[in-house]
Every structure is written in C-alpha cells, then in structure tokens.
C-alpha cells in the first residue's frame, strides 16, 4: 500500500461509515465473548436485516471497552450525537435481548438494559492506548486505517530519519510499561547504536541482524491489560513495532504471547497476515525501501518468560531461563544480536506519539511519568475492568471514583499493584499520585498494571503467602536463592498462617526476604519478597498476632 492508497482507503472507509446513521459496537473481548457476545452481534444483525434497516445501521464486533463487570456490553451510537454526549450503553446483554436493542435504535433506548454512562468510570479516563478498543473491528485492517492507522508509519518513513523517530520518543518522556519504567527512547537509542556481531548465530533463513520483540507474556495474576490491547487493537502493536524497527534499524520482529491467550494470538496472526497482504509488512514497505516482518511466538506458560533474557532464550528454542545481565539485550540479545524488547502497552503508545507529536504526549501525566497507564482493576471493587488513566491520578480517584468504591458493607484496606513483584499500599496513601517514583517510595511498583483492591476482611499474611506460592511455582530453578529461598519463605509464611511460628521464624523470614531480593539472578527472584516486605511494613501486627511463644510451637 503506497501512501496514496493508504489515504484512499482511509477516505473510502470513513465515507462508508458516514453513510450509517447508527453504529452498534458489540464487545468480543475474551470476557464478553465467553458470555456469548458473538451470538448477540449476529442476532442484532439478523434483526436489522429482517427489519430492512441494515443499510443504515452498522453492527461491529469490537475489542474491550473496559467495564468487564457489566459485560457483555453493547454500545449504540447515533451519527449526529454531540461529541460530549455519551453513547447509549447496554449491560449484561443476552443473545435474546437482540430484538429489543435492534428495535430501540433510532427511538427511545431500551431502559431495562441501559448502563449509566455518566458515572466517573467513563468520564475520568483518558484513552491513548485503548483509543480504538471498543471502537474498531480488530479483525479488519481497513477499520484501523479509518481510525488514522499507519499514518504515523507513513510520517516516519517519508518525513523522518530513524534518529528523529528516536528523538521524538525520547522527548515524549515515554517509559517502559512492563513495570520497571526504563526510558523508552534511551533503550531505542542504545539498540540503534549497538553493532551487530560479525559472526552471528542467527538461523540462515532469517536475514535480520537486529531484532524488535514485543513482550506479550502477561503473567501477573489478575492482569489483562496487554491481552485486551492485543485482542482489541492488534494493528496498533504492529505499527508500533514497525516504527521501532525503522528507528533502531531492525529487520525482524517477534510478538511473544502466552499460549493462554488464544484470542489474542488469533487476532494478532490475522492482523499480521492482513498487514503483509496490504504491504505494510515485508519488503519495501509502502514503497519506502524499508523491510520488516513480524512473527508470533507462543510462550508455554512460564511466568519467568516475561523476563527479557528468558523470553529471548524461549524464542531461540531453548529452556526459558534468565541469564545474568550485562550484557543487556540492547547490546546482545536474540541470537547474540542487538535486540529491542518493549512491552505491549509501550508499543501501543508509539504510533500516537509519532502521529500527534512528543509535546502532546509529554503534556499528559506528571513531570517524570508521562502519558497514561492502563490498569486492570480487580478485587473488592464495584467496577472491575480495564481502565486507562493519566499518570499522576490519585489511588483514591481510581478506587472510589472510577472503580465505584467497594461493595456494600466493606471498607478499604489496601490496594495491591505490580502483582507478585509489587506490594500492598494501605489506606494512608490513598491520596498519593500514581507514578513510577511514588509507587516505589511506598514499597510497591507500577508493574505492568494489575491493581487488586482489598477489603477489611482480607488476611494480609494469606495475601503474602498466595503471592509467594506463585513465585515459588514460577521460579525457573536456575539460581539457588530464588529456587530454594521462595520455597523456604513459603514454608515460613504457611507456618505463620497456621499459628505454628515464633518470633524467630518471623526474623528468619525477614532475613530471607533481604537475601533473596539481593542475590537472585533475575527480576522474578529479586522482586519475589516484595509482597511480604510491603505487608510486613504496613501490617506487621497481623503477622505478630499469629505468632506463638518460643517452645509452644509444634512441628
């Protein structure tokens, strides 16, 4: 597709859309699909056809619009709706409700099914990563093009030098969304400057000597940000990777997705195929002379493969275990070549930054944390689902405004961020700004975006034990502190939980936390003690109340 063809496709698609008086969006993300949303879409379509209205009303299967707690969700939007008016949203829709919804379009809404779209959940979000999620059909490249897709790529390939792309990303202040928050532009610059090895281990059929990897091995319990992005807007990830490849001089990209995400894999594969057919992937992209292709690689269900060196080992066909860094992948990664690894959400931010400019992006968020962050809000909160908020928003706004607070009769105790690598943040920090530094300061991490709300009935020792069990099961077993240390810490937490531990056991646990954190080989082990350390910091009395006096413990 040349730039002219791209423009024509966009105009054609937008014009075709303008012909419809109403748009119906049916969520077909994993959660809604499991509740039969594809049948809902089909039924609404056949109802409209039967009524002869299908020429004026467009039904679209879309990615996750966010409020999973109310799914399956169906949105009806009138063409002439004022921009500041929310569209009509229907909740808990069943396939048999299709008739009622279809009949209501153009007339009075079906109040029985209507959701309240004026609540803060909808009004307080800022969508960049998820701007197309819930708006476009993730299985049609034309939909993405109509939503200004590939404009950033066109701009980069024809108007910008690779270094200018990197500078733009640096200026935007974007930081890695996988958890650690490393400046993305700096990482790109390092890969761009690294030389490919003279003698390479790259398999013969792969011509590239630098690689781009998109990390979609989302493994934190309760996290589904990346899944929803891959399911709802896969082309955005492809465009992000293309821009990254152009900027750092890579010729090949891999999306590493866990096999537990079959729908994401299916949509990514379909998207890659369409992009290849459309000439957006492969040789001489858009006639620019730039070559880049993408393959999907599936993870076999190991949490540690989200760690970059393990992920690389896994793509190479080896056992997914980490290796010591340095050398960092930016210098020596996949098959010993310079490799750029970014998380799904990071990649999803690239195209909008190039399209709308670094200054626009840098205008959102706080001084050191720019842009937005997607969170998977779960636990004891009314509105569970996917949210995207500007950096710097307070935890209170997330939990009580957007999340709608805790269910009736429960009171807030803590919010857990960062999954098994993160920590629990107590009520006293509810007004803290959500950004990388603040979260680290209170003993947690931004992490990839899991956010679990806990109520007053939550047993914090049990929470720490749950996460430790997770880390113990997921430790790859390579280094001693993580392999055996997590098992010992889990044993000690179990002992405390069962009321069989003394102060000496608690001291041993604390000492092990420090040792495992400091001496483990990779991030999994280094962060495994975090849930224990943060609960010990804020809820020590819960631990102490379970201890027995020395000599009174039984084996």
């Amino acid at each position, binding site marked *: 597709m040349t730039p002219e063809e791209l423009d024509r496709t966009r105009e054609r698609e937008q014009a075709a859309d303008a012909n419809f008086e109403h748009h119906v969006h049916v969520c077909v993300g994993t959660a809604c699909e499991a509740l039969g949303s594809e049948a809902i879409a089909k039924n609404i379509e056949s109802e409209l056809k039967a009524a002869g209205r299908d020429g004026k009303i467009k039904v679209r299967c879309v990615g996750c619009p966010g409020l999973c707690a109310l799914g399956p969700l169906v949105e009806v939007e009138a063409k002439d709706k004022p921009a500041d008016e929310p569209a009509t949203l229907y909740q808990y829709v069943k396939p048999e409700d299709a008739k009622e919804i279809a009949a209501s379009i153009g007339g009075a809404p079906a109040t029985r099914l209507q959701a309240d779209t004026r609540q803060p959940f909808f009004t307080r979000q800022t969508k960049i990563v998820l701007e197309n999620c819930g708006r476009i059909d993730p299985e049609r490249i034309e939909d993405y093009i109509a939503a200004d897709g590939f404009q950033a790529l066109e701009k980069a390939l024809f108007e910008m030098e690779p270094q200018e792309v990197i500078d733009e990303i640096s200026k935007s202040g974007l930081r890695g969304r996988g958890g650690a928050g490393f400046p993305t532009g700096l990482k790109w610059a390092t890969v761009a400057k690294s030389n490919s090895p003279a003698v390479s281990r790259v398999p013969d059929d792969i011509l590239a000597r630098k690689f781009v990897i998109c990390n979609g091995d989302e493994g934190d319990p309760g996290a589904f940000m990346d899944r929803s992005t891959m399911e709802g807007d896969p082309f955005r990830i492809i465009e992000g990777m293309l821009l990254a490849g152009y900027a750092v001089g890579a010729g090949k990209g891999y999306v590493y997705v866990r096999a537990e995400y079959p729908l994401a894999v299916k949509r990514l594969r379909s998207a890659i195929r369409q992009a290849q057919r459309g000439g957006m992937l492969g040789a001489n992209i858009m006639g620019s002379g730039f070559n880049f292709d993408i393959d999907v690689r599936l993870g076999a269900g*190991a949490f*540690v493969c989200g760690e970059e060196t393990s992920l690389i080992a896994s793509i190479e066909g080896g*056992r997914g275990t980490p*290796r*010591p860094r*340095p050398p960092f992948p930016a210098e020596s990664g996949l098959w010993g070549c310079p490799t750029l690894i970014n998380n799904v959400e990071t990649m999803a931010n690239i195209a909008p930054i190039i399209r709308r400019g670094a200054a626009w992006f840098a205008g959102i968020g706080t001084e050191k944390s720019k842009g937005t962050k997607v969170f998977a809000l779960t636990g004891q909160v009314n509105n569970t689902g996917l949210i995207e908020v500007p950096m710097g928003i307070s935890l209170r706004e997330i939990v009580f405004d957007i999340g709608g607070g805790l269910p009736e009769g429960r009171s807030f105790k803590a919010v857990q961020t960062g999954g098994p690598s993160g920590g629990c943040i107590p009520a006293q920090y509810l007004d803290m700004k959500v950004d990388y530094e603040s979260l680290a300061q209170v003993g947690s991490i931004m992490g990839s975006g899991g956010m679990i709300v806990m109520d007053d009935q939550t047993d914090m020792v049990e929470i720490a034990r749950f996460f430790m069990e997770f880390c*113990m*099961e*997921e*430790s*790859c*077993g*390579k*280094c*001693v*502190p993580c*392999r*055996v*240390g*997590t*098992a*010992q810490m889990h*044993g000690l937490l179990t002992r405390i939980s069962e009321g069989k531990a003394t102060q000496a056991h608690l001291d*041993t646990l604390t*000492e*092990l936390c420090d*040792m495992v954190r*400091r*001496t*483990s*080989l990779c991030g999994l082990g280094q962060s495994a003690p975090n849930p224990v350390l943060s609960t010990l910091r804020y809820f020590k009395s819960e631990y102490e109340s379970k201890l027995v006096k020395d000599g009174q413990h039984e084996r």
Partner: protein
Amino acid sequence: MSAKTLTINGKPVSAREDETILDAARDAGVVMPTLCHLDGLTDIGACRMCLVEVTGINKLLPACTTRVAEGMEVRTDTEQLRKYRRMTVELLFAERNHVCAGCVANNHCELQDVGIAVGMDHVRYDYLFPKHDVDLTHTQFGMDQNRCILCQRCVRVCDEIEGAHTWDVLGRGVKARVITDLNQPWGESLSCTSCGKCVMACPTGAIFKLGSTVEESVKDRSKLAFLKNARDKKQWVM
C-alpha cells in the same frame, strides 16, 4: 588484547580485558567459593556463591560472568557477602537429602567444602526432605537426585565438551531436576556416549561410578583441563 587494572579487596590487580572478575581474583590468589563454575565450561551465574560488591554498582554481581573493567573496585569478602553465602549454602543443604555420612563423595565434595568455607555448623531452615529417585540403569554410572544441587555442570560438560547433550533440566523451581535424554532412564539413553565427563564434573556425589561406596568418589578433572587446553590453545599436552 589490552589489559585492565582494578582492585580486589583493596589490592591492585591486572587482568586481560576478556577475563572475568573470578579469573582476576584467582590469578591474584583471592579465594572465592564457587559451585556452578568449572574451568572449561560456559559460566551461567546460577549458584550465586561468587557474588561480589563493586563500588558504584548497586547490585551484587556474579564474579564468574562479569568482565573486568578499568578502575573497578571489587570486594569479595564483606560481612554482607559472607552472610549471604552462608545462607545460600544452608538453602542448598536444606533443599535435598544430603547425608554426608553415607555419600560416595564424602571428603571429596565441593558442597561439603563450601559448607566448611562459609562456617556452616548447622542449617537454620527447615529441611524440605523431598522424595527423589536414584537412577541405576546405566551400566557404569549412577545418578542420585538426592545429592544434586542443580549446578548444571553435567548439562554443560555433556553439551559443550562431549557434544552429546544427554543431560538437561526438567521442570521448574524446587521441582526442577536434571534428566537424561527426554527423561528416559540413563541406561536407555541413545545419546549418552558413556564418556564419564559428567561424573568428573559433578561437584557432589549426585553422579557417581557404580560400585563406589562412601568416600570413594574422587574427582579427576585433569581430562577436562586437558580437553580445554587442547581446544583453546591447540596444545595436546597433559
């Protein structure tokens, strides 16, 4: 190849630029306990025994995989490192069923040696007492999982020196264990050449010669050194 100057425990040391901190420390006569390192094999930084402190770097670095750099200030024996090392050894002893008194490698065991080096008089952690098998299907050698510390020296010596890659690792966490071929009994392995390098590489009594009894598993690593020397320097001398 240029040389680098650094200090180890305050003592000035010079090293070739492709050498690791461990190489430099050994050259300078600084004793550092190690378990997964074996001369001639690729280092993997798994046992964490050789972690060192480097001025200006917040993280502890494994000496076996970290290259020397000009002006580097390395400390190998701080109170913190000694504490972590002893904890690491204790964790290993607690992990599987190490009964020195009944082991073929008693008195010739690197795990036992590091236990002494770190001053371990007892293990503070709960022994996990896992149930493990002993594979006695091979005609010459045996494998006792109870004594394995997962250093992967057998895996590497078999892959890198012998070129057979009979050994590998199965499973993860404390459930990980080394296996032969695709988890077949060793005696049925089609790839094993019965060269015995894994027996010599094993730091403990996990892999042993059949028929050897307590204290009889003496390790002879001269053949590995010979092969390494032959490969690296093309000198075929013992």
